[in-house]
């Protein structure tokens, strides 16, 4: 760190306040230190976040390909027009939404139930963390191998269990267009519930125990306590969990790529899958960028809605 000497020479002062009068030697030193402290992160931030966003937007208006260097010919809105009129795009959009619809309710409700119950268990917390949380920190590829194996057509654990229940010819989960996404959703719920689980556990810790004790004195049953204390007080956690869940679902890629590669046919192809196929299989960077920008806009809209909801919630709580 060559900057060390620079920082140390900064004039010692008693109280760093918000005096921003430029020109004073102190502010100058602080200013330089500020930029030097920001520089390492800033460089990577510009190179791998800001510039790629700009590059993505620019190439979405060009016929950029992987084969030739440079941007290629100007395409105007042709890439966007192509995407927005292409059945594959809307099908990928629908599958992404479908995935979101399948996974969000169980991931929120089950995580809530597990957390409320596990939180009351004074013993064995580690066991529930192990069971529910550990899958979340494992690589998607390991998860996909396990679940693809469980879903092996005919002889796998899933189909065997179905046979045991009396289904003579159980459908191969990942090989049937109508239910392949269900298989991916089940895998995802199993894989990622731990994250919501710990968010809920953290939220539960903030609820003062006295509330429950007071309610119990008044003769409230556990069900009533959950209904009128736990659920309302976890409102903000629930909003957070739902919206993080939706944004995460929009970015789904790993499970689909690993388990079905978008198939059978294109029945599980999702937006990010379409983007990478367009770029890395068809070599059409321009078109892929247009699709990325569209996906980005969708995620941005969801995030903005999230901000609005959180704001409204905070305001409501402030006035209460």
């Amino acid at each position, binding site marked *: 760190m060559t900057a060390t000497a620079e920082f140390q020479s900064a004039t010692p002062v008693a109280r760093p306040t918000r005096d921003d009068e430029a020109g004073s030697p102190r*502010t100058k030193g602080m200013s330089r230190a500020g930029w030097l402290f*920001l520089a390492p992160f800033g460089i*990577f931030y510009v190179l791998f976040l800001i510039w790629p*966003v700009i590059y993505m937007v620019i190439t979405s208006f060009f016929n950029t390909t992987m084969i030739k260097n440079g941007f290629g010919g100007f395409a105007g809105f042709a890439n966007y027009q192509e995407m927005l009129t292409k059945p594959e795009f809307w099908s990928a959009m629908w599958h992404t939404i479908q995935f979101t619809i399948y996974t969000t309710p169980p991931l929120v409700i089950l995580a809530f139930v597990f957390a409320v119950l596990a939180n009351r268990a004074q013993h064995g917390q580690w066991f529930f963390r192990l069971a529910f949380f550990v899958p979340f920190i494992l690589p998607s590829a390991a998860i996909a191998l396990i679940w693809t194996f469980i879903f092996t057509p005919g002889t796998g654990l899933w189909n065997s269990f179905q046979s045991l229940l009396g289904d003579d010819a159980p459908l191969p989960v990942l090989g049937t267009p109508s239910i392949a996404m269900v298989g991916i959703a089940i895998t995802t719920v199993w894989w*990622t519930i731990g994250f919501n689980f710990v968010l809920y556990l953290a939220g539960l810790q903030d609820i003062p125990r006295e509330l429950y004790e007071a309610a119990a004195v008044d003769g409230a049953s556990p069900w009533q306590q959950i209904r009128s204390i736990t659920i309302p007080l976890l409102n903000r956690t629930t909003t957070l969990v739902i919206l993080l869940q939706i944004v995460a679902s929009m970015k789904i890629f790993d499970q689909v790529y690993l388990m079905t590669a978008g198939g059978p046919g294109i029945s599980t192809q999702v937006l990010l899958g379409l983007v*990478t196929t367009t770029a890395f299989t068809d070599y059409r960077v321009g078109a892929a960028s247009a699709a990325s920008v569209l996906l980005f806009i969708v995620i941005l809209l969801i995030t903005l809605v999230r901000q609005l909801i959180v704001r409204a919630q905070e305001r409501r709580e402030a006035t209460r």
Partner: protein
Amino acid sequence: MTERTAETPTTEQGADSRPPRRARNGVSAAAPARHVPENGARASGRSFTIVAWTVLIIFAVLWLIPSLWAIKTSLTDNGVSAVGAGAILKDWNLTFASYYTLLSAGNIWNWYLASFVTASLTTIFAVLFSAMAAYALSRLRFRGRNVIFLLFIGGILVPPQVLIVPIFQMLNIGGLLNTYWAVILPQIPTVISVFVFKQFFDGIPRDFEESARIDGAGYWRSFRSIIMPLSRPVMAAMAIVTFVGTWNNLILPLFVLSNPKLMTIPVGLATVQGSYGQRLSDIQASSILGALPLVILFLIFQRRIVEGFAGSGLKG
């Protein structure tokens, strides 16, 4: 379990340890005579305990089955596994043959190395750089600071996965494809860490640094010898979150690494299905081997990992 509160509203710690044990023993154990408020709460408390524990245990077991199934299969002969679930369940001649095959012949050691190198370096750079940036935003006043702040906030909105195509193009132009750097560099700007750090730094009283500053210590020294040591817990949490995230990242290494010797664990595992074909036990063993380092990490840093993920709100 709220029997505790229903029956003995005044007892604190003593009652805490009891409900689960009582629940396991069933209904009969759930009625020690204490001064109980006589109302419906007690009966429903008991049924709640039973239902709660049943539900929790059933789901926990359900959640463990896939992992246990993978472990069992990995310890079964390939020939038996190929027959199907029933055969795997019945065969208890456990063997480590699959692990032996993988560890002696496969690329798995290369994958471990790649994952370890890329995840470690990314973590070191990401934590150090984002802590420095957070220090600047938290402690130093300078022109342009607010603009930077807004730019960083904007960065939270950008999901890195969406940028895979432009990042690939840039790495391609830079000649970095098929190097570890292609995996490391793009993952360094972890904006969320900056905000987590900034929030933490904002909470550290300034008096500490001021007394040091009077002694003539510069900003770098006050950052390194006052702020950093005080922030050890949050740094550890962010380091682990970053490490796990980088280790597990699939989409970036998938497209920027094609040399099997350089592949990280997730990319390597992604090729397993195709190359091992019917060797189902080997496939499951490779999945277990891929998951193992993270399970160990979890067992060591349980609390930090949970706190880190809950605190950063990072997902996917």
